[in-house]
């Protein structure tokens, strides 16, 4: 799979087969294309080439089995909805077009809020929540999706210690329930502790596999070091050439 923005390739030739029932960290420097990788998988940004399959099917046919936690900053937290309203959004796929959110779905959403210790905040307007609480609301919303595969974009960014623990607990819970979770992560120190597998990404997959095999000094140096400047320059050159055509 290759992804390009404005004709500038940001992900080159990504080829990856996610192992089932694992917690996978996606790690890489700023601009490495971590969020783009997730968005391309979910069809939120167009792919220049290549394909993504879920259990051998297209994404369109697997929507109900795939959950998504966008970056916290991607939404307007002044929006006039309560925390419960936001968690209920995770059930919309199940509810379907036009039908209202019923009590059954609200109860399911509340149970998910309970799992991240946010039940007491269900009635709060979302701007009244702290950053960590907002992230937990997003996590509860993902749980409400009841998916088998989750994509989470920087769930640990700017959260307090209690929220970080809550997220890790939920990740482990999901794993023991047989699910797979792919998490964009920025804290290299916690990768071995929190995750089974890791994808080292910098515009292409530098290395991917079990943490103990792949998460090596050498690979990290390749991912974060200066060796990829040539690829970055090549991207700019492609964009320029496309612009002149």
């Amino acid at each position, binding site marked *: 799979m290759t992804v390009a923005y404005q004709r500038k390739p940001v992900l080159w030739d990504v080829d990856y087969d996610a192992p089932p029932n694992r917690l996978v960290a996606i790690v890489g420097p700023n601009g490495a294309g971590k969020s783009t990788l997730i*968005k391309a998988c*979910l*069809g*939120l940004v167009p792919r220049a080439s290549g394909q993504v399959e879920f259990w051998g099917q297209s994404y369109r046919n697997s*929507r109900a089995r*795939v959950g*998504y936690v*966008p970056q916290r900053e*991607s*939404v*307007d937290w002044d*929006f*006039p*909805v*309560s925390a419960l*309203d*936001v968690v209920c*959004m995770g059930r*919309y*796929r199940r*509810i379907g*077009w*036009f*039908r*209202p*959110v019923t009590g059954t779905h609200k109860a399911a959403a509340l149970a998910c809020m309970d799992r991240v210790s946010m039940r007491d905040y269900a009635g709060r*307007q979302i701007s009244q929540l702290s950053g960590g609480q907002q992230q937990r609301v997003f996590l509860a*919303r993902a749980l409400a*999706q009841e998916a088998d595969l989750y994509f989470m974009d920087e769930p640990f960014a700017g959260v307090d210690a209690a929220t970080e623990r809550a997220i890790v607990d939920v990740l482990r819970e999901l794993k023991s329930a047989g699910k797979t979770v792919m998490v964009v992560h920025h804290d290299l120190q916690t990768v071995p502790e929190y995750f089974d597998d890791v994808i080292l990404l910098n515009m292409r997959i530098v290395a991917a596999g079990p943490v103990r095999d792949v998460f090596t000094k050498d690979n990290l140096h390749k991912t974060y070091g200066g060796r990829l400047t040539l690829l970055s320059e090549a991207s700019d050159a492609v964009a320029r050439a496309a612009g002149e055509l």
Partner: protein
Amino acid sequence: MTSPFEPLSIGVITFNVGLDLFPMLAATLAAVGCGVLGNFLVLRRLSLMGDAISHSVLPGLVIAFLIASTRSPLIMFAGASIAGIATVVLVELVKKLGRVEPGAAMGVVFSILFALGVLLIESAAVRHIDLDAECVLHGQLETLVWYGAPESVAELLKLSTLDAVPRQVTTLAVMATLSLAFIGVFFKELRIAAFDPDLATTQGFNATLMHFLLMIFVAAATVASFEAVGSILVIAMLVCPAATARLLTDRLAAQIGWSVAISLVCGIGGYLAATAVPAMFARDAVNAAGCISMVAGALLALAIIASPKHGVVTRFIRHKRFAQRIAVEDLLAALYRASEADIESVTPERLAAVLAGHSPSETIARAAREGLVSTHAGTIRLTASGHLAAMNIVRRHRLWEHYLVDEAGFAPDHVHSAAEQLEHVITNPPVGPDRDPHGRRIP
């Protein structure tokens, strides 16, 4: 203005069925239709889109007229609708290809399209064609006069009345009903697409599709409204009721309900303000569309000032109360510290320094009213409940000092002012030892 019919008088307000009924209905229906759609424009920070669409309708009308050479309503409506949708597409294109912010894209598109409309009209005017750019701005409500209107309420309620309803009013009724139905039916989908477009799309509710559906409705509402009420009212109603309602509630469903109520008040109130109020002073009626927009703006201003949740006044009162509470707490803490040091009372100088800017006598009087202190012959004493409250404040202060020094690594002589602020916030400090960094006992 001379009236062909006897006006109805309700209190001091005169209402003339023949002159006023249909214009008022038209204005109110336009206000409600635009007002309810405006909620999602305001929430998606696309308020200017109403402005854009209502201005670019003009070239659509002129081009439709030039092609079909008729002013038949259907042709005009088609031309305006195409122009409205073209605006939405153009704005998206300018935003993407020109890499400019949405406001700039909308501003560029509508001003250029409106200019094109003006130029087209001028060239059309040479060919003796009757199209007026000003009508687009403030509409033609006065043309909706009902000649031969019934004189009694019973007659007015007859079914045959429906035949007399002008086309503009029918169009607006359909538009308002469809807009309300659209928001009602797609409430859940519009909400998720506006709040989190990516999640909406991954769940199969295509956010781009919802965006275009909304824009088509905004375009249709604009087109349906502008002939009768003009674009000023459309622009005002797409923004003001929703923005006002947002200040009154933190729930989307309630916000939509409020916006409809506010639109009704604007439509009816604004129309009466334009006709009946000048009549009371024996003056001619003023432009109703303008007046309705003014009422909408005035309601928004009122909400900004006086909204119970987000208003300026509420915030001022909340701030003032908080400052007063801090002053009382500082007074109690000062008395507690004095009693620790076995000093009978606190000197006025010391009190003035502790209260920093607050009047000592007012603060003492407030604390006395709350039963926290008692005053006897110039000395102030803590009551039993005052003592308890004071102890809590001093405890919080010293625990924070302990935390800041031991956990956060502050220097012991730098923590007092920080702890002074923290002791007044609700968050409790983590429990600590029974002595603060300065060796004083933590109660």
